[in-house]
């Protein structure tokens, strides 16, 4: 007989083991799906997970995709650790891209070292403004931040749509839905000749270090943590709980906004309709797969980034729709939630005695 017993205290090992288990289960389930679709499972998985990153270019692409995921997930980890369910990072990314793109367009015919910092800052501020909407509505009007932040995603996408089709569209662009190219001074520098990986990765790494420091080492981080677990406790301890909520939203919005900056000032260099292939939503999976821990998030962003690349390779070589990538992302989250059961319970095998 197998018995399910509650764990006394979840061990650290299990805590980091379950994400690995989830990835493993995802691979098995993915293999089964490929088999049903009529592919050889191992070959298909190889196309999906190994071929895309086998060369230098592939690896650069991996880092390129992982950068925004990591940045956004780091920001989200502040929200999630304090029980604020900001799921509108996609909107904050888009709005950050709009604001920084707008600033970059102001300088489209100018050069100067000062332009890039202003553009980056504008993106962060844009994300913060957008994230402050659900935060303020939550703290002062008791609205549900999940709904508000999610719905604002669609609002931001429509604003972007309007801008690139209408007022900001490139006068010489033959009515394509895109803006002018930014000037080189408004672009994040590429790191290597011929590869698309750009300086945005340093923003992500800086975010990792800073977030680790703030959350684990400062009084501010401690207050955020307490406020997240219980506003009643925060009040009792004398913390300003509502300000903490707004603060975590602002941090999260800033990170998403920066990810937006990276997208438009990196390889693309202009605003267009699709600034992000749902990085803001996928980053939610990354945040949880990384256990909301800065280092965990680095690894998780790499793993999830592969699903983006794998989907593209699979589309090219196997003629499967690239949405398979989303299937894999969904499975990772699904198996992660399921294996989290092991955090709190363990199986005990007992001999067949009555």
């Amino acid at each position, binding site marked *: 007989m197998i018995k399910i017993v*509650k764990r006394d*205290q979840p061990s650290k090992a299990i805590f980091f083991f379950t994400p690995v288990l989830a990835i493993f289960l995802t691979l098995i389930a993915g293999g089964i799906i490929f088999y049903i679709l009529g592919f050889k499972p191992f070959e298909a998985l190889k196309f999906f997970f190994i071929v895309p990153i086998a060369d230098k270019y592939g690896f650069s692409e991996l880092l390129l995709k992982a950068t925004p995921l990591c940045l956004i997930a780091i920001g989200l980890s502040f929200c999630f650790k304090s029980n604020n369910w900001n799921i509108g990072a996609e909107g904050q990314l888009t709005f950050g891209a709009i604001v920084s793109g707008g600033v970059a367009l102001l300088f489209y015919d100018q050069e100067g070292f000062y332009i890039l910092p202003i553009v980056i800052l504008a993106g962060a501020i844009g994300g913060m403004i957008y994230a402050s909407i659900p935060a303020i509505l939550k703290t002062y009007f008791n609205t549900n931040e999940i709904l508000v932040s999610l719905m604002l995603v669609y609002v931001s996408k429509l604003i972007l749509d309007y801008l690139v089709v209408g007022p900001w569209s490139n006068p010489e662009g033959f009515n394509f839905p895109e803006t002018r190219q930014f000037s080189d001074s408004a672009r994040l520098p590429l790191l290597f000749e011929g590869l698309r990986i750009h300086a945005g990765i340093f923003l992500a790494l800086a975010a990792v270090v800073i977030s680790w420091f703030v959350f684990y080492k400062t009084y501010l981080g401690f207050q955020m943590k*307490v406020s997240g*677990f*219980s506003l*009643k*406790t925060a009040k*009792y*301890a*004398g913390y300003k709980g509502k300000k903490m909520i707004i603060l975590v939203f602002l941090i999260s919005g800033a990170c998403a906004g920066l990810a937006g900056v990276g997208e438009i000032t990196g390889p693309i260099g202009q605003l267009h309709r699709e600034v992000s292939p749902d990085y803001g939503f996928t980053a939610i999976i990354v945040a949880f797969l990384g256990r909301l821990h800065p280092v965990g998030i680095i690894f998780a962003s790499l793993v999830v980034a592969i699903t983006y690349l794998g989907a593209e390779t699979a589309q090219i070589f196997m003629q499967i729709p690239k949405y398979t990538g989303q299937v894999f992302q969904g499975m990772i989250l699904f198996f992660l939630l399921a294996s989290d059961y092991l955090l709190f319970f363990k199986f005990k095998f007992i001999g067949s005695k009555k």
Partner: protein
Amino acid sequence: MNTNLKISNVTKIYPGCIANDDVSLEFNSGKIYALLGENGAGKSTLVKILSGVVIPDEGKIYLNKNILKLNSPSDAKKNDIGMVFQHFNLFETLSVFENLIIDSDEQRESLREKIDTIMKKYNFSVDLDVPVLNLSAGQKQKVEIIRCLIRSPKVLIMDEPTSVLTEQETSELFLSLKKFSEEGILIIYITHKLKEVMQLCDEVAVMRRGKLVSVSQIDNENIESLANKMVGQDLKTIKKKKENTSSEQLIKITNLNFTSEDPFETNLVDINFSLNRGECLGVAGISGNGQSELFQVLSGEIISNKNSIEFNKNFIGDLNPQERREYLMAFSPEDRLEQAAIPQMAIFENVALNNFKSSNFFNNGLINESKIKEHSKKIISEFNVNTDNIDLKSQFLSGGNLQKLIIGRELITSPDLLICFNPTWGLDVGAINYIHETLIKINEQNKSIILISTDTDELLKLSDKISVIHRGRLSKIMNAEDVTSEKLGILMGGGN
């Protein structure tokens, strides 16, 4: 006709705990049975099994020698088992009569007649046509009892029925229960209050950690023997030494009012009192009469007029809890798991919640973990918290140990005033004793206490002065020697 209810080898296992471990019990009508045990002893699970809410993993239930299959609450009803839960299952906005007719299949008119006869017979007076929300707790309970009586039950189970009642309502309830029992209804009375068992019951079954510990006649027991069985250890009795308290005033509350925007909160009206050093002021009352609001106003979670609170010659009404702590106040809220501590955080992190400038837990905005840990170790050893691992998440502490940690955290800084709200709620007798001793000790060190509690015995044991809160108003302050629990009961019910 006699009723015989038999529980045979019942076991129920939840993940992580055995709620009922091979429990066998037999009940016969004509007697009132007490099922006694601390919180978490397994009483409620057993009762839920009897009422069909929970299905046991093993074991059988017999009613008059026939096996009972109780797969749902309606099975229990069909087999004439009635149950009154601790928390009422009534629709607040419907009238009493509507509440009673909901789960009955009888005609309106005949039901009304039936209810009238029941009410006459047992001397109940409840207006059938008012909405339930206008009723007092005692009356709501009567509605629940009538609901059971309509079905002329053979067995009536009462789960902690007096926790919301005043003394008067309690004695009325006991009279009714005795009458039911004389008429042949088998009564099972679940409680952790020893006094009630002695007053009411004929036989007592004691449970501890899911196991049945003893079954005995009440005549062979007394409060001490039952308490020892319940806890499984011998208890010392403690008494407060009456000493001359100083006459130096420590805190004075003047014309304190609080009007809430939340309809579920109670407004506080014209609160006035003062307290000297070394004294303990007990605030009695039935829960929901403004205790929680009073606590929050005193702790600074609700900020009030600056001049309404004078503490140590400073006016502090407009300060938040952290700022009040700097003036040497300490607070122990009622809700251990949702307010006083954060279960998901480590013990030492919980210690850091009570943070003084001089404690140096946080320097220049950075966490000084070694300082906090050192401080936590001190609390753990001085206040007998039963663990040596301060990295342990506090959810793994028992209620008693968690409360010791909280009280220790608040007291280790030797504050002049401790404000505590139901400090022993839900604790086992051993932990209660420890907390009581600690509170007496700090009074002896010339520190003051404001003890807001719904436990009258606790208040009478610890307080020097007592006041009663009723609908947000505080009664005049009485000397504890002049107060009896009957008198408190009248005041708690709103009488004079």
